[in-house]
C-alpha cells in the first residue's frame, strides 16, 4: 500500500487549495468553461451525460479500512450512497456537484487519497493506479 510522506501530503493539500480557488472563480464567472475544463479534468472531474463524475485513484488497488470508510462517507454525504469501482480499480462517483468537489478532495487528502490526473487527456500521460485488472474480465 502506498503511504504518503510529508512531501506527498503537502503537494496534495496544495492541489486541493488550488482547485478550491479555481472552482470558486469558475462559479463566480471569473473563468470560462474553456479555461476551467482542463483544470477540473486534471483533478479527476468529468462532466458526463447526467451530472459531474469524480474518479478517485486507488494506488495499487489497495485500501485500508480508514480509506474505505472515507469512500463510503463521501458516497453518502456527497453522492447518492454508492460509487463504481472500475476495472482499473479506481472509484467513480456519478452524481457530484461542482461546488462540493473541493470539499471531497479535501476529505480524500485526509486519508492519503486524491483524484489527480484521473480524467481526460491528463490521465493518458500519467500512470494508471494499476496496469490492468488482476482477474480476467471474462
Amino acid at each position, binding site marked *: 500500500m502506498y503511504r504518503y510522506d510529508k512531501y506527498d501530503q503537502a503537494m496534495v493539500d496544495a492541489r486541493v487549495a488550488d482547485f478550491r480557488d479555481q472552482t470558486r472563480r469558475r462559479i*463566480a464567472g471569473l473563468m470560462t468553461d474553456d479555461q476551467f475544463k482542463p483544470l477540473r479534468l486534471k483533478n479527476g472531474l468529468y462532466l458526463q451525460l*447526467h451530472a459531474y463524475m469524480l474518479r478517485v485513484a486507488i494506488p495499487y488497488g489497495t485500501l485500508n479500512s480508514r480509506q474505505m470508510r472515507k469512500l463510503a462517507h463521501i458516497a453518502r454525504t456527497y453522492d447518492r450512497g454508492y460509487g463504481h469501482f472500475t476495472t482499473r480499480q479506481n472509484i467513480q462517483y456519478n452524481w457530484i456537484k*461542482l461546488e462540493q468537489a473541493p470539499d471531497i478532495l479535501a476529505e480524500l487528502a485526509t486519508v492519503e487519497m486524491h483524484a489527480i490526473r484521473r480524467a481526460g487527456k491528463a490521465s493518458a500521460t500519467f500512470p494508471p493506479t494499476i496496469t490492468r485488472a488482476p482477474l480476467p474480465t471474462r
Partner: protein
Amino acid sequence: MKIITGNDLRTGAVIWWTGQDWSVHVEDAADVGDHGEQILAVEDAACRVNGGYVIEAVKDADGGVRPAHIKDRVRALGPTVRPDLTLKPADPNAGNWVI
C-alpha cells in the same frame, strides 16, 4: 421546434431553457426559434449553464416536449440502467418514452 439544453454549472444537473429560466423537466422547455445561440451566449456569460446547446425537438400528442435525438431523451429522463434514479422512478413506462 428548437430548444436549449445544457448542465447546471454548480450541480451538473441536466437543464432545459423555459424561456425565462432553467428547469430540470424537459416538458418545461420553450421553443426558441432562431434565438438559441443568442440566449446561450447570455446564459453562459452569466454562469447559469455549462456546455449548453440547441437541439431539435417535437411536441408530443399530449403537449409534452420530446427531443429529436435519443441522447437528449436519455438526458431528459435519467440513467436508463437505474430507473430509480430517473426523474420518474414511479412510472414503469418512462423508459418507453426514451426509445
